[in-house]
């Protein structure tokens, strides 16, 4: 386990019928770190994301997420109790595998982006960022009832939400296009907007599913600095799936390598770069080495 874990994945297994997409995967993501999840196509990376964010219900395993000074000591007691979360005065512990997707986002504060961008294409850039602030705005509008009557102090809350959206528009450089529909933005801008939208939910953990896919080298470098800024300025840890090694090796603090749903390596980018199993999984090996490598991996 990392020194200050934010997310602890323990023995995560996900089966679809007879197919084992993820098998007995354990890793931790440290607080304030950028953790990369890499592996060849079909290795089960997105499945892990979907389990963490509640879109899939894990077949087996425990996914614990900490807020603040989390009572990690209570983890086993919490698991036995059957509750979803344990809160103390200065922290909380969530069992993500017990929570539906929207509560993972709302309470556990895990935000995500998607491999194939999922923006609200027919809504403006600004509206996209306001939808992300749905829950606080709902509360401010008195769950709509007071808002319709104009009683709640909704206008102030909406102004604050717009200010937050503006902040993120400045960060991603889209302020000038705030009133354009999101579907009209160029591809790279859509990727950035999706990250900004996720950040508008004030997450503690941001899960990015291939954020650099389809970006040119310049955009990819911009993305690196955006992710580092998110980690540095917003106390948000990042978990990222990526194929672009220039992104992975440059910004991540910790890399986990999956192949066929099994973890084959776990360490710093430098250690991963020189790991024989990783090289074998990515580049392939001479036939005589396959058996040896597979035996080592445990296939």
């Amino acid at each position: 386990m990392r020194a200050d874990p934010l997310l602890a994945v323990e023995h995560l297994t996900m089966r679809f019928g007879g197919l084992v997409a993820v098998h007995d995967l354990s890793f931790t993501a440290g607080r304030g770190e950028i953790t990369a999840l890499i592996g060849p196509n079909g290795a089960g990376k997105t499945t892990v994301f979907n389990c963490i964010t509640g879109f899939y219900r894990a077949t087996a395993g425990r996914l614990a997420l900490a807020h603040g000074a989390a009572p990690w000591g209570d983890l086993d007691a919490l698991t036995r109790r059957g509750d979803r979360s344990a809160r103390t005065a200065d922290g909380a512990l969530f069992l993500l595998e017990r929570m539906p997707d929207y509560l993972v986002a709302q309470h556990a504060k895990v935000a995500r982006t998607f491999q194939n961008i999922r923006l609200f294409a027919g809504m403006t850039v600004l509206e996209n960022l306001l939808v992300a602030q749905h829950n606080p705005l709902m509360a401010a509008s008195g769950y709509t009832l007071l808002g319709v009557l104009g009683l709640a102090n909704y206008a102030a809350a909406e102004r604050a939400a717009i200010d937050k959206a503006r902040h993120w528009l400045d960060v991603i450089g889209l302020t000038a296009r705030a009133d354009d529909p999101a579907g009209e933005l160029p591809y790279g801008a859509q990727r950035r907007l999706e990250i900004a939208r996720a950040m508008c939910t004030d997450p503690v953990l941001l899960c990015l599913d291939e954020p650099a896919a389809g970006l040119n080298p310049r955009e990819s470098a911009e993305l690196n600095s955006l992710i580092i800024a998110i980690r540095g300025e917003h106390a948000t840890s990042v978990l990222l799936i990526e194929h672009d090694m220039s992104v992975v090796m440059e910004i991540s603090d910790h890399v986990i390598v999956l192949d066929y749903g099994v973890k084959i390596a776990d360490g710093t980018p430098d250690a991963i770069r020189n790991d024989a199993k990783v090289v074998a999984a990515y580049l392939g090996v001479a036939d005589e080495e396959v058996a040896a490598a597979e035996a080592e991996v445990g296939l």
Partner: protein
Amino acid sequence: MDAPSARIDIGHAAKDAGLTALLTFFLLLPLIGFKTVQNIHNELALDTRFPLLFVFVALAAGGRFVYALTVLPWRERRARRTRAPREDAARVRARIERLLAPGAIGFVIVYPMIVLGLAGFGGAVKWVDNFGIQILIYVMLGFGLNIVVGLAGLLDLGYVAFYAVGAYAYALLAKTFGLSFFMLLPLAGCLAAFWGILLGFPVLRLRGDYLAIVTLAFGEIIRLVLINWVDLTNGYAGITGIPRPTFFGIPFNADDDGFAAIFGLEFSPIYRTIFLYYVILALALLTAFVTVRLRRLPIGRAWEALREDEIACRSLGINTTNTKLTAFAMGAMFGGFAGSFFAARQGFISPESFTFLESATILAIVVLGGMGSQVGVAIAAIAMIGGTEILRELDVLKDVFGPDFDPTQYRMLLFGFAMVAIMVWRPRGLIATRAPSLFLKERKSIAGSLVKEGHG
């Protein structure tokens, strides 16, 4: 146009016309070419009408020939022209659209006065009732369904069920407990909203076609219950003698304590009609106001986001279950309001009034209007309901087609033509753009092609 291209055009047009003639011939051969008659032995015999058939074929071919020579080149020329001036046109249209709503509201407020002035006390009832009230009921139903279909993107084919719930709720409660219209109106709305939520629960996981089928079934279930639960609803015979709304306690009758007597007016049925007109106008405006308001609140944006991408909504912490249920409940509530008004206005209701055709009409209004657009829905309601009412007035056509000609019989045909025409001309409805709910610097309307229709 120079000579060679003109010759090519004529050749092309002739070929086009020939093809049309062939198609028309085979299409109309069984329809017009043959006719079944009874001969003198009272047997069924086949008669031929080939001359008439050829008249039709010639008409179609000639029409196509002229069309290919005149309209098609014109359209081609227009398409080739640069698209630059369209921007200006769009801006002008946006300005017209912005002025349309206040202008229309002003007009509908003074409409009864105008009609009174033009048609007098006797003639005005028809114009206020058949055109004013009837259209406004559908405007309101359209606004209500617009929340479910247009904003949240949930295809609901059983909307009439909530209209029926509202109508029967008012009818039964008013007859049994003698409660007044304005007390029962919110109650009927709440009951309809309750049924909306009840429908919402089982269909939460369904999308698209499957959702449509289940909502359709729900509409039919409600209608069949109304037919078969005779003890409560009196079945097919319906409920008669439903108390009519009063002017805040003052009845609209010829008595000494009636509306006319108290206000020192001569008794006329028009007062009740005008009162009802303003009631439904107020209800429709309330619906529009609440919908506009809701669109700018987080719930409205969540509905639209749900229509755009449900999975993204969930990743942002939006409880899509509650969001869908509130959409169903809000839509149903307005349907319930309209239903109780309908019962109060008619004084008689039966399951006949709540068939699938009503659901289809309301959905057609929403789709024709442009999903999500209030102005579009209002225009579509006027065109569809007003249009069918106008057909009743077209006695002139009897002079043309003979005394047996009843224009109202062609209602569905015209309706179908209008639908096809609109869908070809404006596939996203009359108002095909979406207005953003808020903006930073400039309000730009969003092209309909970007906005999703929703999928469940």
